């Protein structure tokens, strides 16, 4: 009896995790294609369209190419950390998904009811910086080291405002469980979404998410004109692919988190009658988020490094603190 009580949930978690990872990895492959096609459109090009119909097999071709590439290790690199860094980069990106509810009901989320869900997200994302830092150090290359240093400074700086923007969300929903946050936004109309009730927090979250992803306009970590490829300089083949994977999986995760926190998560019309619809709504919201991230990259120029740090510490952090205080005040006054 006791055995079944332990084994059954473990099996359920295992199955769900495997499905989740498969979805995340397929999502990663097709996000790269989406980005290349969409950015090509924005730049009045066509983009990769030769492998398969509409270029749909392009990710497969890319993957095959990276797998068969020669694996090169720099002679003076710290071998162990050099191989460890890509793995450390991927794991946090994948395990963020554990607490994100993908649809209504317990079937569509792994740990959505976790009462420390928001803290879990913050903890996992804060560990994500190690991949870049260790890669930069282990490569024993000055561009890589500079990239690694920039990565750690940038991520530490933007984590603060990132966390504080979520504090406002937790205050509103009076729960740190992602399921509760979605349910809080569900009743009534679209105005229940936190993006309309917490616009400042939503803006700060979006900016900090871009900075955490280290994508344009915050991609100083791998600014090719100054640092060749930053911490990625000495990486090739599958090890490079792992870093690439961590970036895109994190991009999906950030988009999913934004949808969960500010766009009502899986909620939408008729979800109670047809639970499967909730999955569709969530997927559409995540997709829109991804397109906006790509659109921003195609539009905005890169920040200067000192401006990036000054913006994080002198603009975003005070603004997010003020937002937390304002939110608390409005809750005490009974406005929310």
């Amino acid at each position: 009896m006791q055995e079944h009580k332990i084994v059954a949930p473990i099996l359920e978690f295992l199955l769900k995790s495997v499905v989740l990872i498969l979805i995340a990895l397929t999502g990663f492959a097709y996000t790269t294609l989406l980005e290349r096609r969409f950015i090509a459109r924005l730049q009045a090009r066509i983009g990769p369209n030769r492998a398969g119909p509409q270029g749909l097999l392009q990710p497969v071709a890319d993957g095959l190419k990276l797998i068969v590439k020669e694996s090169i290790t720099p002679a003076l690199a710290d071998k162990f950390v050099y191989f460890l860094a890509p793995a450390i980069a991927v794991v946090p990106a994948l395990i963020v998904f554990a607490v994100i509810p993908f649809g209504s009901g317990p079937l569509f989320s792994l740990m959505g009811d976790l009462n420390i869900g928001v803290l879990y997200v913050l903890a996992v994302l804060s560990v994500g910086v190690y991949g870049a830092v260790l890669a930069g150090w282990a490569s024993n290359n000055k561009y890589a080291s500079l990239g690694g240093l920039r990565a750690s400074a940038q991520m530490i700086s933007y984590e603060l405002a990132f966390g504080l923007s979520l504090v406002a969300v937790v205050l509103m929903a009076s729960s740190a469980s992602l399921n509760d946050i979605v349910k809080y936004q569900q009743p009534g109309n679209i105005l229940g979404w936190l993006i309309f009730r917490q616009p400042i927090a939503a803006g700060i979250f979006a900016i900090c998410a871009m900075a955490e992803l280290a994508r344009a306009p915050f991609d100083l970590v791998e600014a090719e004109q100054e640092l060749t490829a930053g911490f990625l300089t000495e990486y090739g083949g599958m090890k490079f692919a792992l870093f690439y994977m961590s970036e895109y999986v994190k991009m999906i995760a950030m988009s999913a988190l934004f949808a969960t926190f500010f766009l009502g998560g899986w909620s939408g019309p008729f979800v109670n009658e047809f639970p499967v619809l909730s999955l569709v709504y969530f997927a559409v919201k995540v997709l829109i988020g991804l397109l906006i991230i790509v659109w921003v990259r195609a539009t905005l120029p890169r920040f200067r490094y000192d401006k990036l740090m000054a913006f994080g510490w002198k603009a975003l952090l005070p603004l997010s603190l003020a937002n937390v205080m304002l939110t608390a005040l409005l809750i005490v006054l009974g406005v929310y």
Partner: protein
Amino acid sequence: MTSELIVFIVLAIISVLAAVGLLSSRNAVYAALFLILNFATVAVLYLMLNAPFLAIIQISVYAGAIMVLFLFVIMLLGAERLNQAAPQPGLRWQRPLAIGLGALLLIQAAYVFITRFNSTTVAPNLIQAGPMEIGLKLFGPYLLPFEVTSILLLVAIIGAVVLTREK
């Protein structure tokens, strides 16, 4: 052997080995990585002790902030090579004495442990300390320490800024 005990033993072995690695490594970056491993195993032990909130805080404060800062400083200064310099001439007795004192401390603790083994059992009213329980305590009986801590953190911020400012 309950399953909990097995998990504990595995975690305990990992955390002690990580501490050994920290003490014996000749490279500051490796030492920092061993310390992170130790913190992570302790975080899992917190989970086993019904403290999920502290486990997550442990990861985000220690692994996510403090150790990143350590690595940042080590890389910034290029101080990862820990050449074990010869001690000052007058301090040669120091290392054996230090190891002896550490061993003595451990023996003392082990003696207390062996004489009092299983003398205490866990209280029946187990509570899962989530954010709400911790928050109620923090803004109830512990309000004054909480505010004092915030002042301490402010002092630390100012101190760090003053110390590292270029003249």
